[in-house]
């Protein structure tokens, strides 16, 4: 167990340090890179919990896709750091106020948190038994049987979001020449090429 706890402290310390670096870095691209390191360590913590499926999905979805888009956008933006710093003192009271409110709320939630007695029993007896099947399979069984409607609803929400973003960004620009591969393939020699015998000294009118 020593190795597991050493690994836990390693992952969590790096996760906290890199999360702090996300907000303290001056350069936004460096911030995103630190964010990626944070995701990695969170995935490491998942592995320690025995939730290898969640760990891999975290890496695939957040690090492999979401953070790439983050990085993409942040690199393309022309961010001037001094301009961002300018309003710092002006916004400090508002930001501090929101931060304090959130902190108090978290403290209240944490202080008043108690799990129901039934929940405790459920947690001790996970369905189905982890010793029998791998946790990927267990997760699949629960999601696709017990929670299938909720799961489908989540999928529909994502679909609506996807269609919404496509509708918002789709612009029809007139006068753009685009390659249409089917017309290119369907062109025939008779329609496009004309073989002409050119009389000498006369040319073609």
């Amino acid at each position, binding site marked *: 167990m020593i190795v597991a706890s050493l690994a836990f402290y390693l992952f969590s310390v790096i996760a906290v340090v890199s999360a702090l670096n996300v907000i303290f870095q001056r350069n936004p691209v460096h911030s995103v890179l630190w964010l990626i390191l944070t995701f990695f360590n969170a995935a490491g913590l998942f592995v320690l919990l025995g939730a290898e499926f969640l760990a891999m999905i975290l890496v695939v979805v957040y690090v492999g*896709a979401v953070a790439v888009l983050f990085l993409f956008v942040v690199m393309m933006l022309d961010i001037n750091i001094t301009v961002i710093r300018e309003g710092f003192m002006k916004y400090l009271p508002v930001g501090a106020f929101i931060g304090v409110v959130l902190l108090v709320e978290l403290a209240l939630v944490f202080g008043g948190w108690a799990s129901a007695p039934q929940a405790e029993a459920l947690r001790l007896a996970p369905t189905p038994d982890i010793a029998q099947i791998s946790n990927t399979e267990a997760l699949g069984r629960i999601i696709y049987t017990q929670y299938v409607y909720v799961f489908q609803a989540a999928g529909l929400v994502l679909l609506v979001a996807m269609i919404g973003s496509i509708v918002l960004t789709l612009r029809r620009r007139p006068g753009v020449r685009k390659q249409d591969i089917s017309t290119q393939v369907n062109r025939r020699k008779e329609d496009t090429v004309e073989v002409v015998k050119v009389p000498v000294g006369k040319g073609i009118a």
Partner: protein
Amino acid sequence: MAEFWVGYLLPFLWILGKILMFVVVVLVCTAYLTYAERRIIGAMQMRIGPNVVGWFGLLQPFADAVKLLTKETVLPTGSSPVVFFLAPMVTFSLAMIAWAVIPVSPGWLISNINVGILYLFAVSSLGVYGIVMAGWASNSRYAFLGAMRSAAQMVSYEVSIGFIMISVLLSAGSLNLSQIVEAQKGLWYFIPHFPMFVIFFISVLAETNRHPFDLPEAESELVAGFMTEYSSMSFALFFLGEYANMIMMSGVVSILFLGGWLAPMDNAFFNAVPGIVWFALKISFCLFLMIWVRATFPRYRYDQLMRLGWKVFLPLSLVWLIATAGFLVYTGRVPA
């Protein structure tokens, strides 16, 4: 104390030894892949290729390595030094850590995890970071354009790779790579999934930035793309990482579609050959195809590349996934 030795130190040393074996073998293979590529393309173009250093030019990779090591490391002005040197390391280490789950023979692997195929997918989706970091940190237009292209390209082709992987693991009923190989006894998946085999191979070409999809380093327009500012050892790391990635992805193709270590026919004569030989032969076959493609096809244009990924491969692999699931359920072949 004895418990510590037997319980921790010995397994740790054993794992370390296995890792070392894998890394050394992969590195030597990578070095000779560069040699093989030059010789094969030379033969295809009726040239000789490197044949001077050593017998048949066999020492050429080492000569190249020594040459690169003795060159000067250049740090461009205005670049971000840490990210600049981190980028080639990321590329190289990602190409290496993927081998942690690849079974080369029954039981011959470093870690037999339950979600092996997801791990491979995760590692290959991270490959884009090395390139994007290199492109950004170099503080150069060419490098940046190359990195942008590469980010878009790799993210696009990952989607169809993911769907094809799901089709395969539906047929195998497991995310464990060894079990996927075992499930192919009798019928390698490239026969029932032949269209997906082709699409997967092409997507692998795009994912590893190989010809005809090598737009991130298109030398005719972007000098050398994201590698423009790199020299010496950092360049060598990129180069090795790219070729190690080719070998790794060929390994993935072999495991998913060509039956991994399985012999082509289940008889005593073929089974006498160790599994690793079959696996190496299959990887070499895929690598030869990659090199052949490089010698044959011109580079794709960027919009054509995107069209192929999103409008052709993605719908095809999605339809194939639904068809596979439907077929398995309808004929009652869903693996338990």
